[in-house]
């Protein structure tokens, strides 16, 4: 049963580049951001149009980007650099200012490369590695003030805290609604799939936020209409897969397509283009520092090192989400040269093994050359989960 609003969103995404062009002709400016702790509400409250630059899946752009950065950068960063070089992406074409953060230093380097070769106006937000220290938080607050000052200079206005409050309220509503919608995809007899919700989540990066929120409310109403009481539980026929690891940006469908094509049902994720960045974002104070700290205090991104395994909130959150969505297996996805996640692959597998959760590590890039090999491995993994689930069901019976 199709959710009608999803079709509207797809259409609005297609129309959006032309719309952005018009808005820019009328004097509005677009800030393209990329990173993992960019406090978007500040950009929004200053009257800019924020769009997230998160694209992937194009091996040709990776090759082009590698010529400016290097072949040892993660494929995601290389593709972004390549996209700025080619300037063919309809959204990238509309950016006036770029905002990067230094959560992942490869992102930081990409900012330098884009600034240097493509003469873009780039603002960079410093991010502390000792993010859990009070001193680290204080530093980040000051970086947020500086980030705001640099944006104010470009906006020609000062940040109005009342407007910031409105932006925070708007984004909070978006996050809350997304969370509600997300639970529908994991439910028994689901009327919306994870893939559809994933697309829906990514639309927030590009659409006008107020319009997006309205569309989300509409989607939620449709879902509630179709399924009054979504219950998340294991169905004997499913292989319930959870995707963890490196982000999967717009345009990169390889892994998702293979999982679904071999009969896996994705029911959850903790990737940074999925639901994770929208969870647990609690802004306690309406100020640049307050908003920024809300971001920093979420489940930490893997690029921020945490030195005690037992109390690692990233792993804790992973376990929590696995339980909530009743996942039966984890695909730990690492992009080529994505060190934040590859360095943790074995450790994550060891930790999940202790909880008896099957894990398959998929290390890949955007080229199609490993498609068949991945398909074979994923097929076997999905099969294994199904057999395990069936035998568990038999035991219960």
């Amino acid at each position, binding site marked *: 049963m199709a959710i009608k609003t999803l079709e509207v969103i797809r259409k609005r995404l297609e129309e959006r580049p032309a719309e952005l062009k018009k808005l820019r002709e009328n004097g509005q400016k677009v800030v393209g951001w990329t990173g993992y702790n960019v406090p978007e509400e500040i950009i929004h409250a200053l009257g800019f149009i924020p769009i997230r630059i998160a694209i992937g899946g194009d091996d040709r752009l990776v090759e082009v980007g590698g*010529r*400016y*950065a*290097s*072949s*040892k*950068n*993660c494929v995601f960063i290389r593709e972004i650099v390549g996209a700025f070089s080619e300037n063919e992406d309809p959204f990238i074409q509309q950016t006036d200012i770029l905002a990067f953060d*230094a959560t*992942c*230093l*490869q992102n*930081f*380097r*990409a900012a*330098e*490369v884009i600034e*240097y*070769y493509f003469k873009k106006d780039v603002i*960079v937000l*410093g991010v*502390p*590695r*000792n993010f859990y*220290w009070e*001193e*680290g938080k*204080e*530093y980040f607050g*000051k*970086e947020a003030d*500086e980030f705001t000052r640099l944006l104010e200079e470009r906006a020609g206005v000062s940040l109005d805290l009342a407007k910031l409050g409105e932006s925070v309220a708007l984004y909070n509503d978006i996050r809350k609604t997304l969370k509600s919608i997300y639970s529908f995809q994991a439910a028994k007899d689901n009327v919306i799939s994870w893939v559809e919700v994933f697309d829906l989540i990514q639309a927030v990066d590009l659409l006008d936020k107020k319009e997006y929120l309205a569309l989300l409310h509409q989607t939620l109403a449709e879902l509630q209409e179709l399924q009054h009481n979504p219950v998340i539980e294991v169905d004997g026929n499913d292989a319930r897969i959870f995707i963890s690891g490196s982000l999967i940006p717009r345009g990169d469908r390889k892994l998702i397509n293979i999982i679904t094509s071999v009969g896996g049902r994705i029911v959850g994720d903790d990737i940074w283009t999925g639901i994770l960045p929208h969870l647990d974002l609690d802004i306690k104070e309406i100020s640049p520092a307050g908003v920024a700290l809300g971001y920093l205090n979420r489940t930490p991104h893997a*690029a921020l*090192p*945490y*030195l*005690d*395994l037992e109390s690692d909130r990233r792993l804790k959150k992973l376990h929590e989400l696995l339980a909530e969505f009743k996942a039966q297996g984890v695909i730990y996805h690492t992009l*080529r*040269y994505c*060190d*934040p996640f*590859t*360095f*943790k*692959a*074995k*450790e994550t597998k*060891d930790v999940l093994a202790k909880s008896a959760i099957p894990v398959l590590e998929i290390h890949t890039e955007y080229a199609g050359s490993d498609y068949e090999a991945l398909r074979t491995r994923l097929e076997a993994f999905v099969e294994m989960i199904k057999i395990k689930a069936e035998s568990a069901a038999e035991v219960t019976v």
Partner: protein
Amino acid sequence: MATTDLYEYPQELREEFEATEAIQFRDGSQATGADIWHYMTEVAPKKYPYAYTQRKYVDGRMSRDIHLPSAIKHNYLLLTMNDRINKSRENGSPVIFVQGGQSVDPYYAAGGIALRPASVGMWSRGRHEGLGLNEEVVRRHKQKEKAYHAISFEACQTAGYESIQEGGLPVDMVAPFTCLRCSDISYGVEAHRHGPNKTVKLMNIDYPMRHQADKQWAVEYFSDNLRRLTREIGKIAGREVTDDDLSKEIRLHNEGRRLAIDIAELWWSADVPPTNGLDRRHILQMGGMEIHGDPSASLTILRESKAYISERVKNGIKAEGVVDKPVRLFICGSCVRPNDFRIEEAGAIIVGNDNHWSDICTLVKEEGDPYQNLAHAILSYPYEQSVELRAAWTIEQLKKSGADGVLFLYQWGCNTQSAVARMLCDTIKRDTGLPTMIIEQHEGGSEQSEQLLNRINAFIEMI
């Protein structure tokens, strides 16, 4: 390995060498010229035969400039690393694993010993006696393999994991400056959390990025990091660290830095290279006061080296093995470098590098709050600035050193310096017209691949 295959120091040098200055250690003890000669000619060839290999192109081969006492003394300090570090630990100095390109003043101020990967490697190597070159290389690789397995096969470096977690090396703390030139350092530190060694303390000394030295809040944050660092080391060493301890240490390390700057300028001012590239690098690196795990020892050698090099420059003495008018190469990039012997055979010489030199030639203000001063100096390292600023400083070094060309080397798996390579080289070419070449090096054997060396040779010929 038969003893005849090993290099021997010529006995006719003995008298002259024994009369040279003693090495003064931090604990007040010393090693006289006679002690060093005895160790290097009698003890070490049996304990560490691999170090005396006659194979020319082996990484870590000792300098053959036997008339330069510092070359022998430097190797003495490396080969005695295991004995010396163990002794210092027994006397209450904790050992802290750090990384290259950073200063070590605060570690020593707190009573610790800061060792970067190469020195930790020497310490670890020193625990295995009697190995020939091949056995030693195999041992090292096997251990490294374990680390890659435990961390990631895409890791360019392993933060000493192989020695500290897999090799039982009693390092007390892993606490490098992270983000400094490199992202992987912090992941390397983090990887230790899942290793079997639960006693080693972990800490990231967080280096803020982007115009960091111009931001007072970044200086304060980094200074807070340094305070926490000295406090934590002090706890292990069982002492309270005062501001005065740090001020004293800064003065001592500034002396090393100043000496290295003086020596570099002397070296560059000479008509003919007064030392080979290997000795130049080793001597200047002593200005960072970290390579031997004993700043006082490094300082003694630096002082002596300055006198020797002045003399050579004054008398127009050219180092052995260097051609008359060598092509002068400057090296950019972290963690790897070309083999000096091969470079010199090809008619060139390495006259400078940017990586460690960036921190060595950054002096720290001596008046005022030592933490703030140190933080400000560290955040000003030219290597860690935006590409235009880093390039401007590199160009200054190229001019001072009379370089004819620039090689940018980075290691396979290095995401950070590799991303800067082209920008830096393009800026240097734009502003100086000097030829540049970017090379990726695969870590592997003890000798560099023919393919890599062919490329470097072609570059030298082109110049």
